[in-house]
């Protein structure tokens, strides 16, 4: 045992501040592959049914989709500011408010998304026997549209819950709502935002560009 070295016992020290962040990054890598399967299915459908994809995309509500994109981008900026404020003693009082703003914008996004789904249901755009568009492939487009935006919506619900909870916890100075937790939640929120940045052009703008 020449030059033997003592090992570290994690319990004897404060946990590595990067542990939670690394965990979230690994989780997001996994999430990326989760959505990846859908993107592959999308690629297959779009190359096989370009007309159906164009016809389907034309029936999406591009105004609400664009408003939602703006809301999400703003919310990402807000959560980034929240993380920055938490790092700065003079601006720390803004953290909770910015977190609440982020969660609020996310909630508005979900409400608008619900309005869209509601309208699409009434326009018979939900795949099934009464589907409204006769073009081959349009039904596949809307099937993927609902699965992709639905899955994204589920992620949004978790995010709004987490950020809303952190906003409350931070306002009351709870120990579980510290800088590290906020940063980890912000990472997740940015990911959900980034997924939408891809969903928006892929679903709303197929036949509207160029």
């Amino acid at each position: 045992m020449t030059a033997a070295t003592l090992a570290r016992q994690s319990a004897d020290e404060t946990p590595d501040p990067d542990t939670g962040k690394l965990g979230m990054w690994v989780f997001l890598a996994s999430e990326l592959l989760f959505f990846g399967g859908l993107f592959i299915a999308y690629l297959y459908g779009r190359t096989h049914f370009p007309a159906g994809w164009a016809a389907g995309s034309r029936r999406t509500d591009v105004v609400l989709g664009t408003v939602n994109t703006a809301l999400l981008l703003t919310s990402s900026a807000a959560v980034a500011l929240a993380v920055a404020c938490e790092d700065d003693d003079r601006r720390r009082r803004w953290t909770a408010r910015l977190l609440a703003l982020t969660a609020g914008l996310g909630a508005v996004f979900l409400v608008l998304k619900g309005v869209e789904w509601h309208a699409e249901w009434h326009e018979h755009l939900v795949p099934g026997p009464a589907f409204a568009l006769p073009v081959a492939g349009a039904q596949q487009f809307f099937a993927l549209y609902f699965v992709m935006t639905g899955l994204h919506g589920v992620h949004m619900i978790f995010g709004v819950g987490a950020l809303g909870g952190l906003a409350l916890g931070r306002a009351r100075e709870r120990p579980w709502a510290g800088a590290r937790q906020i940063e980890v939640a912000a990472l997740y929120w940015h990911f959900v935002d980034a997924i939408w940045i891809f969903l928006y052009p892929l679903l709303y703008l197929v036949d509207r560009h160029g």
Partner: protein
Amino acid sequence: MTAALPASYLDDGLTLRSWLTTTDHKRVAILYAIAITAFFFVGGAAATLIRLELATPQGDLVSHDAYNKLFTAHGVIMVWLFLIPSIPSVLGNFLLPLMLGARDLAFPRLNLLSWYLYVAGGLVTLEALLLGGVDTGWTFYTPYSTMFSNSYVVLTLVGVFITGFSSILTGLNFIVTIHTLRPPAMGWFKLPLFAWALYATSLILVLATPVLAITTLLVAAERLFQIGIFDPAFGGDPLLFQHLFWFYSHPAVYIMVLPAMGVVSEIIPCFARRPVYGYASMAYAILAIASVGFLVWGHHMFVSGQSLAASMTFSLLSFIVAIPSAIKVFNWTATLYKGAIRFDAPMLYALGFVGLFTIGGLTGLFLASLALDVHLTDTYFVVAHFHYIMVGGSVMAYFGGLHFWWPKATGRMYPEIWARIAAVLVFAGFNLTFFPQFLLGVEGMPRRYHTYPPQFQVLNLFSSTGAGVLAIGYLMPLAYFAWSLLRGAPAGDNPFEAKGLEWQARSPPPTHNFDAAPVVPDRVYDYTAEEREPEPESAP
């Protein structure tokens, strides 16, 4: 030494509640071991019925419908509820923090959550089985699974989906643990190879499992709403399903076998008293298998009608996986050279692994060859091949690991002579079961039928007899491990004089793992053959 030491993790709370709410990685490992053992024997019961049916050419034991459900149940349970979690979640959970000299995993509560997810997924799957079962095969090929099957496809998929999240959380936990809780003195190339194997396995768990999750989601949606993603009748593409499914399920083979390689890399140096030959190449080979393993899924689809260019690429990449695999086999063999070899039960399992994995791997090359694969697709050759990898490989190593670390986990020795007999029975029974299936496959017997032409009966009888021997070999440890818990001789902290950090803890370890901070040696696998003469009577 007179001061009372803190209680071991087994004595630290004796109520059921203290177990079900534990965040101690060792207790979670024990919880996993109990649940996994239960599922192993359920899956084994299905296999027993399959082999009984195939003892005669006629379908005289079960109907063809029941037979379909039996092999599906066997596949689903053994793959998702036994093989994938077995070594990582039982041995990995128990050992990884100990091997790193840490107190626990990076996220102890997440670890407990992953056990609950596993149990929930397992119970949902079992529920589908009890309601009437599934008849699609464990591969759930579309459009049969989405359109035609009248069985509990969606419920089973829900079970698989939930179990998948358990896998992802375990993988996440291991990756972060290895990054953040290594002792400062333990650089990446002083990690035990078991930890390297868990790291590579975790990468696959985290990156492949989500693709399976989304695929099961799409199959369920297609079955419920007929949305036309996979079903050609609605404009979908069944090949898309196969691509997505095998993108997960081929790397899943490496989820099963990489941890097994890690276990064997711990056992062989200990019982040969030699450092692992070519340590760095062993670590790189693990990473190479894990990464190239992501790019070979198309070799399951040579006869599916995918393009020849794709098939040739996948064939070439599959051959490339053989290179790091062979490096590992050669290095284990070279580790034995000039060693002071002892044939204790763990070593018997480990050596069995090396031999059977080699056969399984080489027959994989037969199947990776395009022309030969056309002849062998969906025959018993394929069944024999993957059982050599999964049972001959993973299960042998799992049993080897259970015996090797049993004294550490329980503080007691298992009965060596019974354990050696069981190991030999498992090896003999396994070969008797599955080697004839290579021959059956070459002669053209297709898989997944419950009847067969009479000329195949002799080989099938060999196979069914072997399955009986194998079953005895698997049941014996259940009995003598139970005996050992009550009557086994006290093991001491390091009965095998092994060098890993886990052996510096007490047996069984206290909840906080180490009474004094463990010492990281200068060299990993610091064994020397001179320190112990081989026992003269040890060769069986």
